[in-house]
């Protein structure tokens, strides 16, 4: 068969093969991104994502969006430039959450018996959908970085509040006030996670009025913009293809 001969004999066959490619590529993209993104997120935002008693109003709200907007930015760069497909962020988060839930359920619970209500992952989906939607509607990666990045940071805490709020109900425990999340961390023993490594509301610029989370959310949003720009270029670079000219054969 020579290069000038087509591998398909009819348009119908071409459409069928193209569709098969769609599923093959999507499947591979999903799992490759799952693997890389999961490792990246665990190494950067790990403990904040693992434990309820790390999900504070400050460090968690700040760190999680900043380190998690990375792969969505990169994958969006590839999928939008080449295919005008606006699901880069969502496919990343679908992969990440699938990997995280498999890990938490089979390993954290199935192997080491930490209850799942203590070690569930953070919910990143609202920000990812909005990031994809902004890209699609604006057609501009700059607008996506600025508006989408900010939205990604701002949507993180409210998107997770329905899940973690019940664990922030206070208890009085042997004369001290704790939240249920603190009590989970105290009860369910982790020999490698002493209390002092929890970064609960450490640092300056603590509140605006009395609220902590909005300050952290805005800061997180602004830094997410910068991270989006940076990882956009990573994605664009990784997505390039360079062909050897056929005359060199």
């Amino acid at each position, binding site marked *: 068969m020579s290069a000038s001969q087509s591998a398909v004999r009819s348009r119908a066959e071409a459409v069928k093969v193209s569709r098969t490619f769609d599923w093959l590529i999507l499947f591979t993209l999903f799992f490759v991104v799952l693997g890389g993104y999961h490792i990246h997120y665990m190494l950067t935002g790990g403990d904040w994502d693992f434990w309820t008693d790390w999900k504070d109003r400050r460090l968690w709200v700040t760190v999680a969006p900043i380190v998690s907007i990375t792969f969505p930015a990169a994958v969006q760069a590839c999928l939008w430039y080449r295919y005008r497909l606006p699901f880069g962020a969502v496919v990343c988060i679908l992969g990440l959450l699938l990997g995280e839930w498999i890990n938490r359920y089979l390993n954290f619970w199935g192997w080491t018996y930490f209850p799942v209500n203590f070690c569930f992952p953070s919910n990143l989906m609202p920000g990812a959908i909005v990031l994809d939607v902004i890209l699609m509607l604006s057609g501009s990666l700059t607008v996506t970085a600025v508006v989408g990045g900010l939205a990604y940071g701002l949507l993180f805490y*409210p998107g997770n509040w329905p899940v973690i709020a019940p664990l922030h109900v206070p208890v009085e425990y042997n004369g001290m006030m704790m939240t249920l999340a603190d009590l989970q961390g105290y009860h369910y023993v982790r020999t490698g996670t002493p209390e002092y490594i929890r970064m609960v509301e450490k640092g300056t610029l603590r509140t605006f009025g009395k609220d902590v989370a909005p300050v952290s959310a805005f800061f997180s949003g602004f830094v997410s913009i910068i991270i989006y720009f940076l990882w956009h270029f990573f994605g664009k670079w990784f997505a390039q293809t360079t062909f050897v000219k056929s005359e060199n054969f």
Partner: protein
Amino acid sequence: MKILKDKVAKLSFVALLLTMTAAMFYTPTASAHGEKSQAAFMRMRTIHWFDLNWSKEEVAVNDTMTISGKFFVFTGWPETVDKPEISFLNIGIPGPVFIRAGSWIGGQLVPRSVSLELGETYDFKVLLKARRPGDWHVHTMLNVKGGGPIIGPGKWVTITGSMSDFTNPITTLTGETIDLETYNLSNTYFWHGLWYAIGLLWLAYWARKPMFVPRSIAVEAGKADTLISGTDKKVALGFGVGVIAIVAMSMASTNDKFPITTPLQAGLLRGIKSIEMPVTTVKVKIEDATYRVPGRAMQMTMTITNNGDSPIRLGEFNTAGVRFLDADVAVDETGYPDDLLAEEGLTVSDNSPLAPGQSKTVQVTASDAAWEVYRLADLIYDPDSRFAGLLFFYDAAGNRQMITIDAPLIPSFI
């Protein structure tokens, strides 16, 4: 010949695969004693655990047991380990096989980090509630910021029963009694399931149409603008507005359902009450100390001076949780772990009662396989070859005095 070579190669590969597969099915129980891997100098010169008591050796699921005792924060704390200004009383168990129902130092509840002082002795207690059946090695443990975990002696405890019977009832300040083991689980699954489904819908909307090859062709042909239709934009707007609406509404309804919430609590507890140890009337000076490698014995020459009112005898040398006793003077009745207890491991050249006002120089030998088993002999390979420990002297009435010793150690290889 080639056919034969191919056959041999093929069979060898099959044999290799079979061996690897068989090895995967062999999974012996790992019951490592991590404390042995800690450097000897660290176990000897940081936290000295003593008067330990494990209240039970067998406990049913949902029943409780305590580990209590004392620890001395060694005055000669090694320079290579950060001081225990920020520490956490932990417990050395393989994951949450127990839950830690309470922990106290000096009578104060310590769910947070604490600040401890060198040279002080503290009493502690940890209350554990059994959760997962099995045989578990339960250690005392203190985490030190900048130093890591300092693990103490461990004892085997058996938990009987079934984990499915375990409950962890807690009453909140809002008056609700919940089971912390399963609380909020269905809520978590619901929200994660919902958002995952919405994400899948977004992906499905685009995946239902041809994705990669046709769109790539169109983009390269300069027809990228034709790939996003008006309907696509409307659907996208719907998703975007819908997401923000769901987030806003769920936040509002959550605040209605849980009007009283507090932020996570953290902080450092200072002013932990130490034990007021009685003033000691015994003085000990270590003249020399050697570790004889072949004999697994440590020999010390020490000058003991009795400034008290009653004759005293040396009963115990405790280092890194290993206790060497002179059986004529001291006997353990606490059920201390056998592998850490050398009941007749302490030999004193002259352990006759030392009268008040008298001094004598004696050779003291602490001999037991524990030196090697617990890798304390590896002290001679540490960068700071000093040993440390606690000596316990007893008077005629059975009153005890604790003296700390800290001296260089010279190895002897012959």
